[in-house]
């Protein structure tokens, strides 16, 4: 079961002090919803990294986080929704507290300078709960039913997650659906009656 988070790394040359710099694009195809990051500062000198993504593609799941390296330890980086800083310790990453379906910002203090140095923004997406064991769970069901059912279930899970459903709830629904399918199938084919020793 591959539960390892997927990482997409953006290398960008960030010049924070009053200058808008765009450097590079996302690497990796599995993070399609994030188009790019732009590090720049507004008219008041507040700097931030801007992360944008397609509105129609899947959301960034709750629990994903953004980590900005090259931020000096102890630097007072503030976080805004949907990002929240870790409860204690140096701020090296910020966790999404809710699924993000819009652009979001990683604010950086205006006096922070990375002139000429590469800043690395790492976005780690929590793996989506498209359960890899679904196929084997419904092994009693013929392939002509199992394969389209499992595919539909995964498609449905993805839609529900994109609609903001809780991943735990979506997983629970999927598991119950597999259980119901197996039980109903065994019942319809007479397995249960055979097991009960009757068949009458």
């Amino acid at each position, binding site marked *: 079961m591959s539960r390892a988070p997927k990482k997409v790394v953006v290398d960008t040359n960030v010049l924070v002090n009053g200058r808008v710099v765009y450097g590079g694009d996302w690497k990796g195809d599995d993070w399609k919803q994030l188009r790019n990051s732009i590090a720049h500062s507004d008219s008041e000198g507040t700097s931030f990294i801007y992360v944008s993504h397609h509105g129609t593609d899947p959301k960034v799941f709750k629990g994903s986080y953004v980590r900005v390296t090259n931020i000096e330890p102890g630097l007072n980086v503030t976080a805004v929704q949907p990002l929240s800083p870790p409860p204690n310790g140096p701020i090296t990453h910020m966790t999404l507290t809710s699924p993000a379906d819009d652009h979001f910002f990683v604010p950086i203090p205006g006096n922070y300078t990375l002139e000429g140095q590469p800043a690395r923004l790492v976005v780690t997406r929590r793996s989506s709960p498209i359960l890899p064991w679904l*196929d084997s769970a419904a092994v009693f069901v*013929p392939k*002509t*039913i199992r394969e*389209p059912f499992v*595919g*539909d279930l995964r498609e*449905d899970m993805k839609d529900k997650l994109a609609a903001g459903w809780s991943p735990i709830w979506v997983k629970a629904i999927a598991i119950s659906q597999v259980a*119901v*399918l197996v039980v109903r199938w065994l019942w319809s084919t007479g397995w249960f009656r055979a097991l009960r020793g009757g068949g009458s």
Partner: protein
Amino acid sequence: MPPQKLPELSKVDMAVLATLVGKERYGLEIRNRLGELGQPVSLAGMYTTLGRLENQGLVTSRWGEDGEVEARQGARRRYYEITALGERAIKAATAVVTRVLRPVRASRSPGRASHEPRPKEGRG
């Protein structure tokens, strides 16, 4: 050859068959369509129903060629189509339902109160 006996259809059987009239669909599409029409069914229940309808010869199915849909992780879609027998079955079932429900429709029609006493016509 004697005409083939039409199987009895449940409400869900009828709903699934009705979505397939004139258009082949895959499972999730059928489920979503039924939800839109106010007849929610679970995926598991629907696939059990589809399996039974296929065994009865009321629908046929074929593999789709769109297995590359990312979210499906390689699982192909299976498209279902209603057969001629299925169409006859749904028409027969619809006729029965229409007959059975006729009193309900009649009692709800405005200006038609068949069970209410008619006012007596006055003389002269």
